[in-house]
């Protein structure tokens, strides 16, 4: 697909986009390749990353045109994320394209956007977001990381950030920190003084995680110091809507894999899918997936502000809850449908299971997302 300059893609364009991403991934990032790169030093396939940028423009989809992007929205990004989720493609898509670019957009800092969005859109700058601290809680205020402004109006950061996606290898960190004016977001460049980046052993080998230690590290304020909470809340809507797309893409792969196996695997002289136990398990997976798909679709439409869509805060929170539960459920049942083979390391089911649990917890987990849903409604 050649990325056009219209802001809303039609059904046909969306289908073209989907097929472009799917065929590129089928070619270059099949399961055996995923397993290879997930155990490599880098953790992803740099050439796939480049091709997705150059041939399809995935990294640029939701970046505004005047910042070097395609100017599409969450709906279009969601189509690509479904495919990336489906194939469990390792790489800094979520961290850089969703969280990094998303934070820049949420903070509405024109000069920062002008400086960094073109690089992110081109896939040449890798950004990520650092919010969670050593207590492991997702929050939007009350950070122990402190930002201090010196006489020359330049900022330094002190603190520790944990569970940062794709921390190792990122070029640019958006760091949440408390300032005397309230919570703010700050940009820290890789290699900055007093910045230490460490990789952590992660549950999901296709989604790397690290830790930042900041000691008097120079940083640039992103937007107005004090705007951190609002920017993070706004970002959370976009990020969870994007995550929902990735979740339903991956969950659909699980369902398809389960159905294919249930049709072909024979026990007791019959394909196991002819037994109601297995058939109804698949039907339950289908039902949860349909609802999750609807929620993910509606969240993207809402974030894009389509006229007949519900409020973004509602739809994103609904999708975050429903898609997290659905993907976790479907990933579990996928193992059950496959029986013993589904429990082996060699079968992809466990990679989806790992991704499902990480997706469910990365923004705080059920306790947080259900409560957030009520808050979005003012309950």
């Amino acid at each position, binding site marked *: 697909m050649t990325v056009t300059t219209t802001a809303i893609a039609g059904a046909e364009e969306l289908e073209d986009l989907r097929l472009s991403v799917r065929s590129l991934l089928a070619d270059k990032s099949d399961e055996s390749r995923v397993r290879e790169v997930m155990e490599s030093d880098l953790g992803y396939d740099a050439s796939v990353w480049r091709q997705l940028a150059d041939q399809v423009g995935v990294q640029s989809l939701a970046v505004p045109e005047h910042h070097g992007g395609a100017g599409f929205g969450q709906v279009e990004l969601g189509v690509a994320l479904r495919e990336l989720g489906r194939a469990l493609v390792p790489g800094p898509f979520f961290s850089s394209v969703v969280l990094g670019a998303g934070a820049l957009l949420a903070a509405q800092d024109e000069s920062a956007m002008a400086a960094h969005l073109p690089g992110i859109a081109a896939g040449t700058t890798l950004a990520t977001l650092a919010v969670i601290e050593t207590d492991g809680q997702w929050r939007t205020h009350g950070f122990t990381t402190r930002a201090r402004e010196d006489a020359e109006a330049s900022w330094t950061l002190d603190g520790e950030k944990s569970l940062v996606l794709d921390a190792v290898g990122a070029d640019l960190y958006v760091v949440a920190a408390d300032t005397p004016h309230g919570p703010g977001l700050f940009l820290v460049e890789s290699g900055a003084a007093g910045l230490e980046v460490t990789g952590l052993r992660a549950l999901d080998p296709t989604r790397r995680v690290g830790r930042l230690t900041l000691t008097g590290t120079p940083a640039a304020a992103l937007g107005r110091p004090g705007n951190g909470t609002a920017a993070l809340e706004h970002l959370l809507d976009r990020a969870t809507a994007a995550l929902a797309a990735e979740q339903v893409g991956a969950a659909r792969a699980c369902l398809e894999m389960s159905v294919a196996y249930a049709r072909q695997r024979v026990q007791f002289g019959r394909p196991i899918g002819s037994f109601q136990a297995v058939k109804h398990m698949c*039907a339950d997976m289908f*039902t949860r997936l349909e609802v999750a798909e609807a929620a993910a679709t509606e969240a993207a439409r809402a974030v894009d502000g389509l006229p007949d869509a519900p409020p973004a805060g509602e739809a994103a929170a609904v999708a975050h809850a429903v898609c997290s539960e659905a993907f976790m459920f479907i990933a579990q049942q996928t193992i059950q449908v496959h029986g013993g083979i589904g429990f082996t390391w060699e079968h992809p089911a466990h990679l989806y299971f790992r991704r499902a649990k990480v997706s469910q917890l990365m923004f705080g987990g059920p306790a947080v997302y259900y409560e957030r849903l009520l808050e979005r409604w003012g309950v």
Partner: protein
Amino acid sequence: MTASAPATPATPASPTASSSSIEAFVEEASAFLDEHATRRPTGTGRVVWGEGEDRISYFGDEPPEVDRAKVDAARAWQRTRHEHGFGWITGPTEYGGRALSPLHDLVYDQLEAGYDVPDTGVISLIGLGMIGPTILAHAREEIKQRYLPAMFRGDAIACQLFSEPGAGSDLANVATRAVRDGEEWVLNGQKVWTSVAHHAELGMAVCRSDPSQPKHRGITAFLVDMSLPGVEVRPLRQMTGGAEFNEVFLTDVRVPDDHRLGEVDDGWRVTMTTLMSERASVGGEGAGPVERAVSRSYLTAMLEAMGLSRDAAARRRLAEVLADLTATGYLNQQSLRTLLDGRAPGPEASASKLMFSHNLAAASHLAAEMVGPRMIAETGDWGTFSWNELLLGTPALRILGGTEEIMKNIIGERVLGLPKEPGTDTKAPFRAPTGEQS
């Protein structure tokens, strides 16, 4: 943000196909509705605790005179619609229809949803929605002319005479006999779970015409005048205490052969076309007492009224119910949008039906938990004991119109392409079930 129920679009979303004729139709329909009905105030989804009717019933369960009055109002409104060209929007003109597209039909429904009009479900869900199309497809010309206009004018309510004590999930197991006698058929048997039968002028009966054939063959379908001698309708009391359904006993009922639907022994195919429309129509949303109670507005008002606004456990459970409920609403909206775009709906309707019963059951158990002991007897407190009606009604939603197990078979086999169970009784000749079956 105000607490209002998930919005149902009162105006159709971008009807792309043949939009100019649609626009004219919208204008015409709006004018008709403005003249004959009252526009519903917007924001009616808002619930003020303690205000309004305190009934949360999925089934009617009302005294017979109330029930009767509602049916009369439905007939009257259907007649008004019909007189103004909105009685059968998609129907052929020769039977009183408008010959417009299904999209026009949908657009009309969407428009009408914005007005306060009598609920015509008793006429439309089964009669117009399912039996009308079957008559159109399978009846003789004179039968079409005789019944279709009457049905769409609200004069003839039609019911299904399908299920039997021995033919529930296994509908093809019908044992009601139809024996040919010259130009008539003699019907004998018992039908059950027939909603609407106590109001109906017409029934569509599925009967065994040849027991020596395998069970899916040897079935013939008939249109039965419910006033014929030998047709006896008895109310069937369900667990809620009301009687929404009936048993219908057929004793030597003589039906003329011209009332046959489809060919002799080909009734299973006829029945399938009838049922196809059913699966799609169940599980939709409405504005009845259940939809009012199983809503964000009501349930959050309840959380507050029960003093649980700051109880994290109650909040968590409420959020779980509302997440599913809202997402199911999105699913239904998207199906509707697909239809309005002129595209065929996908298999999401079966998911929606399963979610519908899941959501209602979850909401009623959550409500029971929030209410606590006041659920065990009528203390007179608004919004407490009234939840019993729904609580007792929800088990039926997992059964009626196809059990959940049958729905899951259908999803597994027709949607996902999983193999059927090896059949054990599709080839053998049908033998009428004997008495030991209940």
